[in-house]
């Protein structure tokens, strides 16, 4: 066993990133949309960690760490926003939130 090619990790992360995009495009629930973004961030993290391995550096880890912190902060604020939206509209359907257009 000589291990796994680095590219596999990268392609995995690309796949996850695209699945995140897909989730964002195909789901209608705002929370699911948000989760799709989290998925994308996770994919990015995988890339960072992979490259960190490649360079035998810890920098990628640090970046991943900050992404997590940011994700946490985003989650707090994002969920609060979603709460207010729900409170005002009694819906989490993203397509219902389109009073402003054109």
């Amino acid at each position: 066993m000589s291990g796994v090619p680095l590219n596999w990790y990268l392609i995995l992360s690309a796949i996850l990133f695209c699945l995140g995009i897909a989730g964002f495009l195909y789901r209608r629930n705002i929370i699911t949309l948000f989760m799709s973004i989290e998925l994308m961030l996770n994919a990015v993290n995988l890339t960072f960690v992979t490259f960190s391995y490649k360079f035998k550096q810890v920098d990628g880890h640090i970046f991943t760490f900050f992404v997590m912190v940011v994700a946490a902060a985003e989650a707090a604020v994002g969920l609060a926003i979603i709460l207010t939206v729900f409170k005002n509209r009694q819906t989490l359907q993203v397509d219902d939130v389109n009073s402003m257009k054109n």
Partner: protein
Amino acid sequence: MPDSFFPAGVEYIRFLPEIILTIAGTLIMLLEPFLGDGKKSGLGVFALISLLAAIPATALAGNNPGYAFSHMLLVDGFATFFRYVVIGVGVLCISASFQYLRRENQNSGEYYALLLFSVTGQCVMAASNELIMIFIGLEISSIASYVLAGYLRDDKRNNEAALKYFLLGSFATAFLLYGIAWIYGITGATNLDQIRYTLLNHDIEAGGVLVGVSAALMFVGFAFKVSAAPFQVWAPDVYQGAPAPVSAFLSTGPKAAAFAIFLRVYMTAFGPISNRWEAFVWISALLTMIVGNFGALRQPNLKRMLGYSSVAHAGYVMVAIAAHSQIGVAAAMFYLAAYAFMQIGCFAVVAHFARQGEKYVNIEDLAGLGWKQPVTAGLFTLFLLSLIGIPLTGGFFGKFYIFKAAVDSNLIWLAILGALNSAVAAYYYLRVLVVMYMKEPGDAVETSQPMAPGISFTLWASALGTLLLGIFPSAVLDFVRNSSSLAK
């Protein structure tokens, strides 16, 4: 990497504006519970003072240029300039907010604190020399912005604006991050200078195409933040939905800061691969101008119209980036400053004129304002003329400088198309003038209130800025020219 990680004293000075603003923001949150409902404006005044205090701090930092905190920050003229801009934006927006917030019964310390923190984030962006700082600064600015956009939480449009801004913003940030990850993967560095060095020396195992991909992914993130086509879609919705002073803030401060990092990353880190992105920035600039200007043509809602116009103006700055030259950077810097003044001025008029619940934000509602409130209308006229690009206003000189940069870089067609776009833009700005001066006053104008001192300050200061940049631009021009050499 520095030998000693312990920061020297001067490095704190280079970080002084952010420190002041952070402390001030925190203090506001601490003081908030102790102040009664009627006295929240005091916090705003405090925020104003702290922002004003940050200006000499910025100057101080600017006088001690150099790296700070292990090359995380680079305080140079460029950073200083954008710090000035975003702090100035903060000042103008806060002062425009008092009356608005009181009218909406939402006058509280959090607003000012968030605004201060957002400005802090933008200052960090302006000075950051490291992708990680860029990311964090961007997130500080953005998350505060998301909240501000939805600040009036009982207002449906506010919620919607916040939600759209937040979801799409995070979505785009993911792309940016992915791009950062890739450039890290290729060069092993997140420091801009190092990336540039690596790319310049072709010191990479991977092909240039990967650099291109990461540049592209980061472009998505930046273009989204600056609302450049085809990533501008969110901007009109958000600027329309957010509270007017916040729209003023969102369409200037974060945008300026985003342009700052855009410029810095593209001019330094991605400078060596400019052959890959110049053409696309050209197209994007043109598209942005077209989408913004044409979209605004028949827009009845003033805020939304300004949103579109904000997109269009981002397009002009993109022209400067497409020029990819030192003068281009200078032009972009100058334009952003001028644009900040006039755009805030316009939104401040909206903030002044709108009633509770943002009634009367349609262009038609301004009918007859020119004669009922000649000063307001006169200043508004000045801002609109500046947005059109009439000489002796900052908008004109900015546009002139941008076209000059484009022409100098042989982007003559882009300059011509930009010029024609300006002519299109004149149409919808003129429409506002038509309504203000050439229609008879309606209900909206008849019931309008006298101007509050805060907004008055914003308007006059913006007008002063617009005129100064238009008539005596030399000082600012010299500054931007001297601080526009990013690629070292």
